């Protein structure tokens, strides 16, 4: 009926979607193709789309060329996990307060949190560098975890707040009437109900934490063993002869952890992240 398309319209829509997706996926496709080409064919000019000897050799060679590759991936996952756990410890109580309680300076303080989104780390790098230096945290995992947490707290509060607002109040009120303390209600009534939301927000924070590591890593950490993947690979671009096919293989391997998490949770994730866009 209203949504019915003619065959021609259908074809037009699919064609347009294809063009859109080509733009989005082209870099990944090129990275994948490059990772399959043997090094001597990589730099063939003029450009040849098809190499007759594609192989997955780079995916096994890369572990020797970049000896720390496994370590980089581990660091990325480790830092992102630590950032997520710490962020959630700060976010959960604060989001609950904004979702449920009335208190002085509520809007003002929320605005302060959201205002943090306006600054990227880059603006604050100089003093942050000094803070971390005076706490002797430079060149440790903490140098990447602490700023990571600070810049994800606001987003986390914002996302979780809109989730908590959707949980019916009646259950909490019932607990209150039965004489439960506020803290008890939060822990035993609200949190169990909010578990799906916690997972969505936690995943969003994890993805954010995984994505934001570059700047803090290249600025606050000089220790190669602690470097997360993006910073570790970036260092490689500067080398004399970059084995680009292995570099691409390593980059693609490095995004596997987030891609897997994302694919499992994408449905909830999209709904959770865009919750603010939908009118209640």
């Amino acid at each position: 009926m209203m949504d019915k398309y003619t065959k021609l319209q259908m074809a037009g829509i699919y064609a347009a979607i294809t063009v859109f997706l080509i733009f989005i996926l082209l870099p990944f496709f090129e990275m994948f193709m490059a990772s399959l080409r043997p090094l001597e064919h990589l730099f063939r000019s003029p450009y040849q789309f098809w190499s007759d000897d594609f192989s997955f050799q780079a995916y096994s060679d890369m572990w020797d060329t970049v000896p720390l590759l496994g370590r980089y991936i581990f660091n990325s996952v480790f830092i992102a996990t630590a950032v997520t756990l710490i962020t959630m410890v700060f976010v959960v109580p604060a989001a609950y307060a904004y979702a449920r309680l009335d208190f002085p300076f509520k809007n003002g303080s929320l605005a302060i949190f959201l205002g943090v989104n306006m600054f990227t780390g880059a603006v604050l790098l100089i003093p942050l560098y000094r803070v971390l230096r005076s706490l002797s945290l430079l060149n440790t995992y903490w140098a990447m975890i602490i700023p990571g947490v600070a810049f994800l707290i606001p987003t986390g509060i914002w996302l979780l707040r809109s989730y908590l607002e959707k949980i019916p109040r009646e259950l909490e009120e019932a607990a209150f009437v039965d004489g439960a303390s506020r803290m008890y209600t939060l822990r035993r009534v609200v949190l169990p109900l909010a578990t799906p939301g916690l997972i969505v927000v936690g995943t969003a924070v994890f993805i954010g934490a995984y994505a934001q590591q570059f700047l803090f890593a290249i600025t606050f950490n000089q220790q190669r063993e602690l470097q997360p993947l993006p910073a570790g690979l970036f260092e490689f671009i500067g080398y004399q002869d970059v084995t680009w096919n292995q570099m691409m293989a390593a980059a693609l391997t490095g995004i596997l952890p987030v891609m897997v998490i994302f694919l499992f949770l994408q449905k909830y994730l999209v709904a959770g992240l865009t919750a603010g866009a939908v009118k209640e």
Partner: protein
Amino acid sequence: MMTEATQAPGQGAALPAVRQKVKSLPESVFAWVLIGPAMLFIAVIVAWPLAETIRLSFMEAGLGGEEYVGLANYQELAESRKFLQTIVRTFYWMFLSVGLKLVLGLIGATLLNAAVPGRGLFRVLVMPPWIIPMAIGMIGWLWLYNGYFGVLSGAMMSLGITDGPFEFLAYKSSAFYSAVVADVWVGTPMVTLFFLAAMQGVSRDLYEAAWVDGAGRWYRFRRITIPQIMPVIVSMSLLSAIFTFNSFEIIWILTEGGPRGATTTLIVDTYKTAISNFKFGEGSARAVIIVILLGAFSLLYLNLLKVVNRKYGTK
């Protein structure tokens, strides 16, 4: 339901009083107990460094020590033509990139919102640039932009647009627009998905009523979809503008601000000054100017948001 207090043994008579006290913990105090830790963390890691940035901007500071120089850092910037150009370039970068993201986001969301088979899959395929580390996406773009073995230059050669290899990142204006495209690539998925979510939230009744009255697709899009999702469009453009203004990694990895400063935006300039050259004072002055510009821009924008919300009748 029992509280923990009532289960705790050995507190006997004191118990009711304690319970009363717990229950009557004023809401506002409890709220601040919950918010306090997050606020404190932000204060130490964001607010204090911000204050410190402002202080440093009045200093001549390097690795050695610091010395008060008053407004000298600002004066130097005010007199610098190069810095003025950087500001102009940054706003150009922001408006161009955000404009493209909004247009592409709107087109993408409309396409993904069309009731065709496979749209669930398309929605998933749109997301990767958003969720992977930017630095890794940029490795892919570096490759694409390479003149000798990138597919773009290769395609241009075989189509006869250029005679030889074209290095996208080697010339001033092609480097700038190439960086814009990469930035649009990173930012479009988020915009698309927010617009899509907003479109799906528009009541079907509106469309059906218009459809019954004989309104065509384009008319429905223009007169129903756009006004209904206007608040999201406006708030996304602010968010996107802030991200784009602050966009650092994309430029840094592709060009490090070059060639000859062609892609140096304020944030890149600040990083170069402060971190690469250890001129903390001059870098801080730049950072303060970024904060002021972004703050002014946001205030202006939030006022616009109010007007839009009033016009389209949402809270």
